[in-house]
């Protein structure tokens, strides 16, 4: 008997040790439940973080665009529509009015981390016989590369963009047969054309993007697209990516211009995350419940088995509260130990699985994120669950009539 422990702890631990078979089985059950929760949570966190980091390193949090041109129905008089069929006009490349003022306004907002102008539009890339339609994106490299980490994705050459340069995707390069240093002719619907030098090839991990996206200097794009001095969008990153939609609405209210946040453009992803989180919660709750029921049933059996001993303890002066606590502590200890073992097992399984599973190209499927607070929360929750689960058996033990219990 350790002298620093009070009676309740001594008895609880002895009872658990004495019924070691039951203890081991229920510990195994609790551990498995906790391991599943830890494994699943970490997996989900990792996958989400992975997706988010991909999305957020490849696009701005917020894009300001000129408003769509909307055709208005012809009206003869107030409320009377003459022609009900309204055709959406074909959208030509339009620039944002007063974009310099707007850019300064945006840069002045405390939520905004970075804002940069972009001029983009469709074009045709030609080399000898081969031609491909492309999206020409004219950027100011210093600002734009802080938003989209293109330099990280360069696989050949450099992300250099003087007015004569173009950076293209690996797939486009192989399709039309150009490499770093080669010339590429670009023409647009306005009839303008330019011959540019390929300075870098990027691989953004997506075939469609690698085929279509190209990057040039802002001025080059402006002159090719016939946008003298104009830009087609402002690309913005905000300090808190999750506040992007709020900032978008703020900007829209301030400027009257259309603002799309990454949250709105990736709505599907967020719907999926929400569905996943709901099912995750359901799984957690059911695992938690079965853990609680397991602990409760083991303790109910233990109370029945020990009812004579409980009666004798009462005869020797044990108070009801002391008996109650002996069983509550057993529940808490089972929950806590199970959580510690289960967390270790779950984390171990996660590391092993993470090491064994690779994507086709040999890179890891997702970053391994093991949050220490997850274990702390699991331990606390499991201990609380154990105590709550022990409530019914413990009350039963505390209420035992010693006369009946001793007579058996």
């Amino acid at each position: 008997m350790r002298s620093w422990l009070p009676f309740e702890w001594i008895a609880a631990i002895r009872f658990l040790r004495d019924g070691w078979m039951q203890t081991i089985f229920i510990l195994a059950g609790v551990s498995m439940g906790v391991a599943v929760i830890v494994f699943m949570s970490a997996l989900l966190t990792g996958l989400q973080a992975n997706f988010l980091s991909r999305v957020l390193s490849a696009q701005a949090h917020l894009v300001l665009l000129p408003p769509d041109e909307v055709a208005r129905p012809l009206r003869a008089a107030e409320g009377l529509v003459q022609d009900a069929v309204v055709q959406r006009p074909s959208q030509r490349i339009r620039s944002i009015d007063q974009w310099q003022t707007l850019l300064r306004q945006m840069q002045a907002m405390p939520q905004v981390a970075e804002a940069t102008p972009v001029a983009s539009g469709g074009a045709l890339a030609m080399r000898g016989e081969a031609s491909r339609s492309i999206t020409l994106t004219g950027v100011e490299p210093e600002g734009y590369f802080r938003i989209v980490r293109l330099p990280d994705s360069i696989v050949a050459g450099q992300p250099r963009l003087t007015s004569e340069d173009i950076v293209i995707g690996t797939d486009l390069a192989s399709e039309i047969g150009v490499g770093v240093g080669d010339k590429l002719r670009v023409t647009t619907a306005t009839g303008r054309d330019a011959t540019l030098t390929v300075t870098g090839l990027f691989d953004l991990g997506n075939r469609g993007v690698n085929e279509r996206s190209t990057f040039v200097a802002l001025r080059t794009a402006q002159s090719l697209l016939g946008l003298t001095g104009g830009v087609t969008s402002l690309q913005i990153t905000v300090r808190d990516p999750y506040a992007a939609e709020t900032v978008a609405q703020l900007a829209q209210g301030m400027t009257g211009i259309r603002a799309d946040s990454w949250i709105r453009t990736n709505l599907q992803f967020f719907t999926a995350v929400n569905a996943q989180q709901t099912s995750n919660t359901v799984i957690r709750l059911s695992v938690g419940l079965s853990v609680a029921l397991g602990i409760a049933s083991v303790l109910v059996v233990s109370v029945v088995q020990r009812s004579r001993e409980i009666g004798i303890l009462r005869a020797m002066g044990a108070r009801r509260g002391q008996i109650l606590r002996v069983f509550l502590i057993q529940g808490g200890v089972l929950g806590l130990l199970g959580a510690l073992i289960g967390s270790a097992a779950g984390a171990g399984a996660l590391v092993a699985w993470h090491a064994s599973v690779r994507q086709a190209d040999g890179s890891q499927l997702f970053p391994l994120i093991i949050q220490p607070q997850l274990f702390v929360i699991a331990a606390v929750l499991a201990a609380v669950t154990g105590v709550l689960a022990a409530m019914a058996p413990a009350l039963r033990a505390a209420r035992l009539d010693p006369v009946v219990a001793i007579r058996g």
Partner: protein
Amino acid sequence: MADIGAMAPEVVCLQGVCKSYGVGTPREVEVLHGIDLVLRRGEFCALIGPSGSGKSTMLNLIGLLDRPTAGTLFIEGHDTRRLDDAALTRLRGRSIGFVFQHHHLIGAFTAAENIMMPLLLDRSRPDAAMRRSAERLLDRVGLLPWKDSRVGNLSGGQQQRVAIARALAMSPALVLADEPTGNLDTKSADGVFDLLREMNRESRTTFLIVTHDPRLAQRCDRIVEVVDGRIVADGAVEEFRRIARS
């Protein structure tokens, strides 16, 4: 100890104590009818009677494990009617030791720890003094070498000796023993009874012992006989001998 003075303090006093089971149900039955009994400091008293006559019921009442349905019960001068559950538990823990016939020890603990248990319950945390007094008691009942044995590994007689040591751990005023030798062979029974007797002499603790064994009852100072929930005889053991002879 035949000369216990009438002036020795009362440890137990029952006045018109009745006990019914199943109160408020159709099966209500009164098993003790107006018991009057006084036990004084240092008495060594046998409680005899046929099976089902109410001996265990009486012990449970005196041991504060149950409450009388009528009458008054004083333990060391405390009117137990006035005490709530918690106070009864405290009084029981400090003033009364129990020895039962069966299943009397806590299997998850060693012999020494079982003896420490009443002290631990009273003071919450174990200390060296508790262990010393447990070992002294174990030595007294001749089981010191077994102090760290699980009680499940001891023989029936040894277990009962541990139970007696435990009953005395709090130096209680009263020890209640319900057929303490009922489960033992004659030799062990004699040994356990001798031990009870010696403990009574040494500590002047009052003993009330339920027994079916007339031979052992004869070795007590006083015999109380219960039949059908009433005390039918109560006197010094010599009187019983005289009655038995005549």
